[in-house]
């Protein structure tokens, strides 16, 4: 095959079910293609990806991932080929769409990798089933439903419960398990609405069977290998993305393992898949029967996990296979001199634990099922299941890093073990703890949960060790300490159980030479020499020699969660590049298997480890690095700063904390200290107070004056943050959300209602302060900046405003002695500029700023930390046109959650649009975030009294654009007064037809503008917004958002398509 121009579509914004794994696979794909001499055109609407860096591809488009927009790019770039399998389900669906629209044929674009026929056969439930029956592979009894009635009839034959799987959706969206007709009606209705082909598979339930996955690679000559087997701890019924998973499979006997392996290869060959793919099985251990569940004909979250678990670069090999290479023609990059046609053998155990957002979303339904709710995951490596599980517990970054004590009753525990939910593992542990981990208990848990006893037995062993440790009081025998460490217990947990400080535990360990040994991930269990710079720690075995030069350690950000997403991985990877360019060995510590930063190719050394004190100290002991960077990994790294500083000092390590000092970071983070500093410098901050008790919260709120913003201190993504308008709301908040205490005070801030909010990203070398961007929030003040659409440059500021904002930003950076990156949040109200917050670290918006301006801000920041002077860089980074970032939400996946925006962050990802003006950029960003605005049709308006006055102009604009309006009584009456026509419909609470719900269901609404006020939106609104989510009707919940939408309809150009520009810095 000659050298080609190849189009690679990415996966778009991060949503639940489609996360950073496609940045990882897409980036690896681009690098493989370019190394092979091809020219790569990359399209993705997600600015936070490494994939969309100008260095990753030859030409980068940050454009919506729609058939329409890709058609324009194809027309312009005339690529020879397209690789659809790297952009998740989005990529596949796009390729299918382009093919069906005749675009691929028209421009003679060849599809590389798995053919469309094969994709269809794997994804169309009916075709897949038929094919499997043909080749004699067992599948569950099932049928295809195209209507709710079909579904009900099928279920009668199959018996309840039945599993509902919509065709062609990702992360199991819209699927579920129905136990009754009523439930089936709801689930089937939702599933039909979501399936792009309006097709459901209704399947007999095999609840309670074990679930296994095989990750397969196949070339066009039918050579195929299994990269990795994976075993789900949670039995069937829980989506594999929601399950705790171990690799390799630990309980499958040889014969069963080979049976499933043979089946996986047979299935993949019969479907004709080229490259990576994932085959899922249900397995009944007593009868040794198995059933094929499904095949993902592309790289996936599981392949990212399998890649990190084994060291095999699945996406890279998949890409090479798509180009027509054979497996045996490719090298094993880990050993360097053996073949890629090789099945890894590993000599450790990998555990993956999902990360769920329920700590933020207290109202969301915590039950787990066939659709995903987790936002990310962590992976850990240990020599045994025990060590690996305990390390995963430390890595997840939620809770305290080990099984906490709970007060659940026996009945509650059993419930939490029986019904899948995010606390199941903790409940199993707590149940065993409460009942002394006897054999009867182990059996009881297996009986009610269907977990394999192998795992429960091992957990029971750990619980027994926990009980043994808890009998120690301020003293622990060396032997017991070693045993605990070999079983993966963290120092913190041991300290807690034995009433000894963590520092003393560490000292006792070191005295006894109990320290982390770092072993290598080599694909071959030591059979061949490998020089992979990919390490994991264990206390179970002896260390190996690791060659270490002058290094810089960069802390990553761990599992993806709301508020700390892929943006921080972007900055981490840029930090690595900058450190390498400056001549250092760049070392990454991270534990997220989905990311680019945990690709061993991405750094000089990768430590796949928990991001806690213990593991970072162990790495510092080994590396004795020149420097450590804490600014790039989000709040996780910042929270460790003072501990790391203290450790470096006490251990007399030669390590510098690069960039802003820990003392200054603390000044910025601590409201009191920061407030004092700013007051002295004459910079306004909203009035505030830190309340150490609930009484104080009430008192301070009154003194400061409602509305106030209340929140717990030291949290990310606005967790537990609310705007409170009166005492009644405040009391409710205190009851439900936060208990103020002297250790964990609640912050009370004056809320600047109606202010313009700004986000400023800057980089400083201590002398020059470079303003990267002033971004203006599009949603009104009070909406979390991560959930607000924002535009750069700011649209509604005067020249003077801009100058003042820049001056103040520079002043703040200097006061806080920022070296490296920082993010400021400012507000302008009544011409006064307030500093709301200063974050002494790389922000969520840094990649967006970098993509909009072409300046790699994170790299510039690291250069500044390394002592570079930024004299050559413009003091204010220039940009052309406008860029808009819009958040994307995963409402569909999180049932029970209201979709109205507020100070607590709810979005999971973001999309960017760029254009010559705001309107164009906004339209593009909305499309990129899958929220296309309609250009005609009917708009439903429901506006709270408080906002009606301000809404008049928006309503008029809508009419002028030719939209028909419908509204509830109050809103319609107001519109009438303004001489605007609208059709009146009933409120939901009137319980009369037609109400908005029935009109929506009939498909007669194209856009909803619902502007509620007050703390919790009324049930009417919530019900309607939820239905809008399920039916895919765009909705706007803020006035400013509505204005932006109207403006974009006025001035947006729909034909503008330009690749990203790159500044040679």
């Amino acid at each position, binding site marked *: 095959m000659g050298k080609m121009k190849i189009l690679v579509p990415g996966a778009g914004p991060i949503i639940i079910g489609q996360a950073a794994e496609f940045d990882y696979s897409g980036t690896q794909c681009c690098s493989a293609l370019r190394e092979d001499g091809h020219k790569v055109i990359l399209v993705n609407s997600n600015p936070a990806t490494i994939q969309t860096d100008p260095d990753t591809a030859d030409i980068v488009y940050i454009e919506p991932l729609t058939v329409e927009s890709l058609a324009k790019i194809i027309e312009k770039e005339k690529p020879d080929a397209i690789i659809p399998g790297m952009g998740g389900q989005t990529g596949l669906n796009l390729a299918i769409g382009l093919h069906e629209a005749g675009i691929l044929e028209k421009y003679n674009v060849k599809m590389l990798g798995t053919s469309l026929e094969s994709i269809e056969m794997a994804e169309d439930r009916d075709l897949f089933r038929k094919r499997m029956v043909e080749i004699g592979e067992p599948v569950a009894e099932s049928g295809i439903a195209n209507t709710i009635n079909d579904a009900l009839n099928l279920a009668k034959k199959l018996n309840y419960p039945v599993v509902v799987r919509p065709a062609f959706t990702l992360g199991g969206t819209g699927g579920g398990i129905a136990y009754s007709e009523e439930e089936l009606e709801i689930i089937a209705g939702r599933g039909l609405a979501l399936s792009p082909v309006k097709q459901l598979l209704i399947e007999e339930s095999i609840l309670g069977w074990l679930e296994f996955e095989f990750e397969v690679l196949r070339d066009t000559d039918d050579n195929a290998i299994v990269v990795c087997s994976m075993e789900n701890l949670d039995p069937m019924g829980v989506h594999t993305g929601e399950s705790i998973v171990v690799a390799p499979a630990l309980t499958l*006997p040889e014969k069963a393992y*080979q049976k499933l392996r*043979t089946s996986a290869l047979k299935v993949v060959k019969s479907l004709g898949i080229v490259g990576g793919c994932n085959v899922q099985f249900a397995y009944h*251990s007593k009868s040794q029967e198995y059933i094929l569940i499904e095949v993902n004909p592309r790289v996936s979250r599981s392949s990212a996990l399998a890649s990190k678990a084994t060291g095999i670069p699945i996406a890279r090999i998949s890409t090479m296979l798509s180009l027509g290479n054979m497996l045996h023609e490719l090298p094993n990059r880990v050993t360097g001199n053996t073949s890629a046609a090789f099945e890894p053998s590993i000599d450790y155990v990998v555990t993956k634990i999902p990360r769920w957002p329920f700590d933020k979303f207290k109202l969301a339904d915590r039950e787990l099922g066939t659709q995903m709710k987790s936002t990310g995951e962590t992976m850990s490596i240990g020599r045994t299941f025990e060590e690996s599980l305990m390390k995963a517990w430390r890595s997840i970054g939620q809770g305290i890093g080990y099984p906490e004590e709970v007060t659940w009753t026996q009945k509650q525990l059993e419930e939490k073990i029986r019904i899948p939910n995010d606390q199941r593992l903790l409940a199993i542990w707590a149940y065993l703890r409460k009942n002394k981990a006897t054999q009867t208990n182990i059996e009881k848990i297996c009986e009610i949960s269907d977990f394999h*006893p192998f795992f429960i037995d091992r957990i029971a062993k750990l619980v027994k060790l926990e009980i043994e440790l808890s009998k120690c009081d301020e003293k622990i025998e060396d032997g017991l300490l070693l045993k605990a460490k070999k079983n993966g217990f963290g120092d913190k947990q041991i300290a807690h159980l034995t009433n000894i400080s963590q520092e003393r535990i560490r000292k006792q360990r070191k005295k006894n030479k109990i320290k982390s040994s770092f072993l290598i991930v080599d694909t071959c269990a030591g059979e061949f020499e490998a020089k992979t710079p990919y390490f994991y720690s264990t206390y179970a*075995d002896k260390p190996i020699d690791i060659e270490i030069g002058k290094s810089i350690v960069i802390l990553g950000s761990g599992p993806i969660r709301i508020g700390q997403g892929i943006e921080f991985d972007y900055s981490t990877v840029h930090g690595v590049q900058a450190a390498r360019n400056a001549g250092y060995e760049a070392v990454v510590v991270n534990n997220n298997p989905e990311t680019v930063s945990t690709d061993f190719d991405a750094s000089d050394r990768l430590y796949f480890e928990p991001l806690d004190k213990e593991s970072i100290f162990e790495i510092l002991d080994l590396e004795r690095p020149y420097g450590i960077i804490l600014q790039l990994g989000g709040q996780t790294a910042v929270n460790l700063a003072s501990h790391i500083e203290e450790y470096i000092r006490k251990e007399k390590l030669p390590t510098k904390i690069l960039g802003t000092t820990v003392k200054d970071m603390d000044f910025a983070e601590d409201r009191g200290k920061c407030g004092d500093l700013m007051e002295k410098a004459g910079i306004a901050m909203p009035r505030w107070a830190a309340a150490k008790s609930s009484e104080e919260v009430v008192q301070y709120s009154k003194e400061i004056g409602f509305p106030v913003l209340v929140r717990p201190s030291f949290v990310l993504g606005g967790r537990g943050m609310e705007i409170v308008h009166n005492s009644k709301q405040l009391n409710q908040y205190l009851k439900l959300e936060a208990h103020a205490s002297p250790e964990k005070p609640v912050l009370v801030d004056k809320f600047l209602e109606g202010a313009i909010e700004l986000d400023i990203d800057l980089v400083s070398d201590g002398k020059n302060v470079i303003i990267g961007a002033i971004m203006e929030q599009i949603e009104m003040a009070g909406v979390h900046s991560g959930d607000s659409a924002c535009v750069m440059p700011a649209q509604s500021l005067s020249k003077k405003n801009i100058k003042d904002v820049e001056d103040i930003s520079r002043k703040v950076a200097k006061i806080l002695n920022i070296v490296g990156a920082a993010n400021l949040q400012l507000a302008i109200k009544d011409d006064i500029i307030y500093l709301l917050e200063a974050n002494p670290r790389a922000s969520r918006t840094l990649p967006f700023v970098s993509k909009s301006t072409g300046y790699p801000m994170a790299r510039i920041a690291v250069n500044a930390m390394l002592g570079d002077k930024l004299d050559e860089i413009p003091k204010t980074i220039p940009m052309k046109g406008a860029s808009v970032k819009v958040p994307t939400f995963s409402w569909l996946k999180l049932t029970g959650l209201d979709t109205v925006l507020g100070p607590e962050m709810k979005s999971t990802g973001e999309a960017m649009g760029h254009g010559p003006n705001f309107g164009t950029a906004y339209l593009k960003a909305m499309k990129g975030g899958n929220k296309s605005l309609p250009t005609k049709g009917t708009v439903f308006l429901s506006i709270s009294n408080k906002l009606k006055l301000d809404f008049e102009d928006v309503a008029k604009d809508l009419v002028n654009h030719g939209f028909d309006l419908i509204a509830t009584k109050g809103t319609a009456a107001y519109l009438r007064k303004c001489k605007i026509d609208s059709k009146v419909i009933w409120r939901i609470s009137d319980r009369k037809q037609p109400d908005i719900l029935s009109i929506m269901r009939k498909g007669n609404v194209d856009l909803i503008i619902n502007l509620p006020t007050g703390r919790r939106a009324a049930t009417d609104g919530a019900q309607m917004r939820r239905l809008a989510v399920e039916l895919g009707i765009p909705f706007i919940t803020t006035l400013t958002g509505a204005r932006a939408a109207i403006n974009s309809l006025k001035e947006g150009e729909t034909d503008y398509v330009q690749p990203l520009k790159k500044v040679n810095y």
Partner: protein
Amino acid sequence: MQGWIALENGSVFFGESFGYAKTIEGELVFNTSMTGYQEALTDPSYAGQILMFTFPQIGNYGCNKESYESKKIQTQACIVKEWCRKPYQGEMNLDEWFRKEKIPAIEGIDTRELTIMTREVGTLRSVMCTDGTMTPEEGIKRAANMSWPSEENLVAKVSTSKSYKEGSKGPRVTLYDWGVKQSIVTNLAMKNRVTIVPWNYSLTEIKKTKPDLVFLSNGPGDPDHPDLAPVVNTIKEIVNEIPVIGICLGHQILGLALGGKTYKLKYGHRGGNQPVKDIENEVVYITSQNHGFALHELPKNVQETFINLNDNTCEGIKSNNCWSVQFHPEAAPGPMDANVLFEKVKEMIDG
């Protein structure tokens, strides 16, 4: 109680003993399969060897009667990082099985370190002690002075003493038992009438079984062992008259009979993930392997048919009226990819 393994290079590794209390000698080898411990331990090709598993948690699914590849455990001993006390599957756990079979075992050893040592210096003669009857220092001395297990005629030890028959239909296949795995017998007996014969059957004795094809089994030890020279000569004669197929040791002995040479690999191939390529049609099989010796320096009339993709060693040959493979198409333990080769038995008979 504490157990240890002492190596000829002076290293000693301490662990916790389990299984049978005993002191034994053997050649330490490692296997990288993550499952299939029972099949491996009962494979006669491991005779004289101490088998160490690189996967750290062994015994997870217990032990049962169905997974024997011969009548007993064939290794001298077993080394694991950790064994599973309560497998919740199978009839017994590893400890119970080893006690029953009188096999000593150790856990808690840094198996990765020992694997890398083996990879770097080659397989080592070793002494393992789980009964406290020897000091580690004595163990090192004994390991350095002991003879290699392959210096003994291991084939004679593991072969059947009497011929017997399996399978009731199809052509007649006579199978030399040089330590044959049950799965080879089972695979052949599905479509053939198989006569399994002792290791040293002469041409005359073989002819009495009226074979349509002679099958050479796997087995332990050095193919170039002086005691096997008469066997090599017999095979030379057989090849001229009857079609021959060989696996593993059978492949090596066929190679010797055809004029090739064998040599000892530094640390062998033992695992279920060895990639081999069919040279003719470029098909790749992931194969099960267990061998410490390999074939090379083939004469011109012998064609190499398979190579190992990791180290390019010879994995298969063919010549007039015969062919053989170094890997194990019968798997057990390991992947079934190459099982298709058994279908070629009939082709061979039909000419």
